[in-house]
């Protein structure tokens, strides 16, 4: 007779071993929802629910916030709210490190069925599990090993239509931890008192036994939030490699531009940059700008820019060309002109895991040339692809140390959209505050998108000496 089976709370706690500082963790309905109730409330990881709660705990309840299963929870300091469409973007766009689901059945190939059994066959209940499974770096199943009557929930091939094909990485049950590898399922941990053979005997799928097989424990690692605050712009951008794609805002005038980070990038001198930005630096040549204001021109003049993707790349006046236009005319830079709304949508798509989309903008024009067109419900569209970047430098008004950002007025524009698109997002703000000082309904860019924060020094001038 093998040992006891794990209680459901311990099954869930075992999943906590997959977390790490700063991890974004999406929790599906059922057992996964218990994790924030079992773990001490710490800001070390971001628990997110498809209800729109980002950064919450189950240790408390504020009477108004619910998790994926509809249970009342409370926001941690620095937690925030968003809508379901943006949660889906966080899930699908690769911003989630770990997704934890409770499938009703899993297969050798890592397929899973979510919340559907023979009893409710014909009804499917994907909820957000599909988006979680297709966008997260690691997908963990937490489920009882066997269903009613001793039927194995782990099978060679799912007997019901699946909600995710080959998406699972790890399966935690009440008797074992099983890794999904290329060759099938590998048993890596067993519950106390359970031998590998005991687990194999109740599993309807072949299990290989790991050479490092060990006993399942529910030790919980202490997780503290990673430090995101950097001492200077140069420090925050030190690792930008040559040839990087950089998203940088710059709507038109002096607001909304990360002047301080731009100067940092200039001082580092890193070459062959490809900028994605609404303009390629026109503040210095616009009537409402100022001839000595810092804009993208400082990077162009320093020979760091080889390409711009922009909607407003050149000066409004041909007689007052911008640095970019001069470089372009000398053949030193490439240019891709994109309608502004298409640029915003391509960035939003890149950040939200939308690979491509059909937009009506640009049909029958130069900017729609050589692109696929399609008629949908009698209307013509062109196909545009999502845009991502290596780094993003954005300008916020305030941030907290977790990276939550608020903006000011129309200086918001491209900043929150771009913040979702880069491997490394660096934000420049006027002030850094403690978590909780920005309200959960006030936060525009949730900290889970932001990697590094710098304060724009109070004596920093956005104007150059000329």
């Amino acid at each position, binding site marked *: 007779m093998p040992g006891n089976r794990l209680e459901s709370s311990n099954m869930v706690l075992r999943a906590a071993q997959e977390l790490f500082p700063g991890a974004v963790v999406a929790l599906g309905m059922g057992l996964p929802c218990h994790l924030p109730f079992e773990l001490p409330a710490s800001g070390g990881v971001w628990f997110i629910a498809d209800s729109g709660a980002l950064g919450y705990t189950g240790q408390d309840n504020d009477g108004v916030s619910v998790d994926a299963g509809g249970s009342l929870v409370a926001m941690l300091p620095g937690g925030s709210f968003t809508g379901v469409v943006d949660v889906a973007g966080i899930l699908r766009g690769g911003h989630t490190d770990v997704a934890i689901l409770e499938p009703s059945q899993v297969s050798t190939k890592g397929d899973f069925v979510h919340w559907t059994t023979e009893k409710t066959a014909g009804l499917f209940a994907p909820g957000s599990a599909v988006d979680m499974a297709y966008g997260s770096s690691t997908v963990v199943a937490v489920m009882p090993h066997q269903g009613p009557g001793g039927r194995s929930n782990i099978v060679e091939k799912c007997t019901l239509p699946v909600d995710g094909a080959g998406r699972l990485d790890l399966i935690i049950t009440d008797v074992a931890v099983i890794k999904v590898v290329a060759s099938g399922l590998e048993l890596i941990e067993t519950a106390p008192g359970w031998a590998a053979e005991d687990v194999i005997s109740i599993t309807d799928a072949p299990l290989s036994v790991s050479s490092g097989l060990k006993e399942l424990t529910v030790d919980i690692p202490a997780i503290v939030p990673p430090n995101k605050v950097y001492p200077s712009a140069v420090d925050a951008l030190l690792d930008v490699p040559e040839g990087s794609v950089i998203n940088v805002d710059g709507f038109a005038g002096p607001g909304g531009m990360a002047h301080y980070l731009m100067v940092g990038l200039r001082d580092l001198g890193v070459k062959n940059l490809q900028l994605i930005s609404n303009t390629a630096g026109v503040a210095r040549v616009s009537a409402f700008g100022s001839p000595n204001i810092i804009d993208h021109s400082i990077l162009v003049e320093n020979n760091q820019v080889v390409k711009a993707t922009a909607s407003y790349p050149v000066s409004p006046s041909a007689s007052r060309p911008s640095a970019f236009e001069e470089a372009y005319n000398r053949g030193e830079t490439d240019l891709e002109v994109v309608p502004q709304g298409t640029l915003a949508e391509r960035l939003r798509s890149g950040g939200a895991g939308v690979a491509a989309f059909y937009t*009506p903008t640009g049909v029958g024009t130069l900017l729609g040339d050589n692109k696929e067109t399609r008629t949908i419900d009698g209307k013509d569209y062109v196909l545009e692809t999502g845009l991502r970047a290596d780094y993003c430098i954005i300008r916020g008004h305030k941030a907290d140390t977790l990276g939550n950002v608020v903006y000011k007025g129309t200086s918001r524009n491209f900043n929150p959209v771009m913040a979702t698109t880069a491997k490394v997002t660096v934000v420049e703000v006027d002030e850094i505050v403690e978590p909780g000082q920005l309200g959960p309904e006030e936060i525009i860019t949730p900290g889970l998108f932001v990697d590094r924060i710098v304060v724009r020094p109070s004596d920093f001038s956005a104007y150059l000496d000329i």
Partner: protein
Amino acid sequence: MISVPDNPSTNGKLYPSGKDALEGISIGDTVLVAGFARCGIPQKLLQALSEIEVSELTLICQGAWVQESTDFTIADLVATGKIKKIISPMPFHPVYGGLVKKAWESGNLELEIVPQGVLAERLRAGGAGIGGVFLPSGAGTRFAEDKEKRLYDGREHVLEFALKADYALLRAEVADTLGNMVYQATSRNWNPTMAMAAGVTVAEVDTVHEPGGIDPELVITQAIFIDRLVLSD
């Protein structure tokens, strides 16, 4: 040509009752209903809808999976027999069932299951003038059957088309008379997306301020998306 706004006059967005605010809703219409679990459900509008002579409606919503609720929910509306079909990621709780499950099992209600993120993205596309989107979600599953697929970055993506509806029933804690709205906590959920994706949007709100009563930085749903307002009590 210019589409004539639904409510020409500045303060004309505020309606005296739920029934008035739903004027024009017709047999066979598709109706978006916001809400997630107990949060952000436009109860008064659902109740008003249940009292209107209308049938064969299609609802697009999160589903009705809250148990033992005294609230007026989608399940109560389904019980009136006015609903032909529900499009949802989880129309009822798979374990607890309820009125929606009963209606479905008796053959009186059609269900179309769409993963939550796919449904949200299709509605956003409809509201944002996008014709279709290629999403990774659901590749290799029944949700991708009979749909166009393409490889991007070596991964299969599925073409999903935009979705729009005739009416949207929304709920917010606070609005101004222009239709700017803010939500409390997780009652935001489907509201901002659904606000974009319907011909006529109706919002049930607890409090209506004069313009200027809401901080412009905090507005989540902008007035441009809202046609009609009604007070919740």
